[in-house]
């Protein structure tokens, strides 16, 4: 059962929002965050900082596409900065725990840690360590009754948002996802589609995350998100089984058609690829096809336009990019398919 749950969880993310005492939230001082960046780098030798005005556009787009940097930060060319863990900021690999601290976003400091798979606690530990590093040398705005003081009072509390990206094709196809969303009301947990508009998310990817509150501490929030993710996963697995029981031929047909297209297409857009990858991933979850763990999850990200462009300059032109994407997908599927 545990393995089944893990196959539905793409990634885990923890964000901690912090602000410096008395410094205006929208400070325009050019070197406002240099000292914070220095503190983080001194405590973590493998980290490096990049100013937004010096960030290569290509890399900025890829970071945005991977949800590591926000529009708001990208528009802060005055004093916006990021501090990242790796020496290659655009690097996307499964083994990496990705760390990107945004400095000069809506809040002064937004520490983000993202890991593949389901690991809220270790994301939190990494983020908390960076927060502690900063607190040793800087005064962080905090009040006992309000928690961490944020630009928006609606974010008061722990400053933490813990979220889990889940693959929920059966809940989505049967529209049960809206029932889940309704049941989560009052639980201080939100479910959102990751790609696209409306309640049906392209690729059937959803993000489950906590809402800010003053009643729970970090440990309790993590526990709650953890518990709800498991409940949703169990329901998704049950529903996948009954879908397969009800219409096995239709599902097998769709999965194999998607496999055919993904392994033989000469050109493919990211939208079409995401759609077929979702079917392939569903086929993997219910045992119609088998791929190395994580291989399909990686593909959802590496085939996105800007991320693909960071791997190869030529991909900035769309015909070339659609060809490169098709080639990349068929290669990955060939080497990661298991009998």
């Amino acid at each position, binding site marked *: 059962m545990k393995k089944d749950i893990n196959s539905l969880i793409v990634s885990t993310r923890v964000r901690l929002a912090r602000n410096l*005492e008395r410094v*205006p*939230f929208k400070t325009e001082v050019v070197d406002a965050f240099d000292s914070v960046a220095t503190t983080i780098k001194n405590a973590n030798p493998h980290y490096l900082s990049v100013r937004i005005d010096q960030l290569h556009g290509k890399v900025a787009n890829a970071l945005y596409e991977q949800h590591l940097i926000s529009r708001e930060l990208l528009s802060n060319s005055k004093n916006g900065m990021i501090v990242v863990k790796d020496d290659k900021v655009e690097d996307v690999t499964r083994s990496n725990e990705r760390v990107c601290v945004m400095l000069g976003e809506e809040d002064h400091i937004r520490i*983000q840690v993202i890991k593949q798979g389901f690991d809220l606690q270790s994301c939190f530990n990494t983020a908390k360590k960076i927060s502690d590093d900063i607190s040793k040398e800087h005064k962080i705005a905090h009040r006992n009754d309000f928690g961490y003081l944020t*630009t928006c009072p*609606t974010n008061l509390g722990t400053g933490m948002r813990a979220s889990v990206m889940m693959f929920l094709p059966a809940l989505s196809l049967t529209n049960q996802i*809206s029932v889940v969303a309704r049941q989560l009301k009052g639980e201080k947990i939100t479910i959102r589609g990751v790609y696209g508009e409306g*309640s049906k998310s392209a690729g059937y990817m959803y993000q489950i995350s906590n809402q800010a509150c003053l009643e729970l501490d970090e440990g309790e929030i993590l526990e709650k998100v953890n518990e709800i993710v498991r409940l949703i996963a169990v329901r998704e697995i049950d529903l996948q089984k009954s879908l397969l029981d009800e219409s096995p031929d239709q599902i097998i047909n769709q999965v194999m058609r998607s496999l055919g297209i993904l392994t033989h297409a000469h050109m493919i857009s990211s939208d079409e690829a995401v759609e077929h990858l979702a079917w392939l991933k569903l086929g993997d979850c219910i045992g119609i096809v088998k791929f190395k763990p994580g291989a399909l999850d990686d593909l959802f990200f590496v085939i996105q336009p800007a991320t693909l462009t960071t791997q190869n300059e030529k991909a900035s032109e769309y015909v070339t990019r659609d060809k490169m994407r098709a080639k990349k997908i068929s290669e990955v599927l060939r080497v990661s398919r298991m009998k």
Partner: protein
Amino acid sequence: MGKSVPVCSGCLGKGAGGFNVTEVSSGPGFYSVKQTFTGGPQFKNFYDGKKVAQSIVCTNCGHDLVAFESSGKMGCSECYNVFNEQVKRIIRNRK
């Protein structure tokens, strides 16, 4: 969530890390955060009746009630002492 309170429009409809994602509609009877927190008019009326509030200004950053009212945002950590009552109201509404 009934009463309208000032909320930063940038924070609505965002997922972890402040990225745009789509709120899942939970069918009839569900009000999206966007619909519930339209901010603006009702809140304005609430404070228009109490002109005294307009004189509140944060001495650390210069943020005043009008700025808070229009943006839903604080100017600095000191603003939380200056706008203490208004913040408590937001927190009560959030429950």
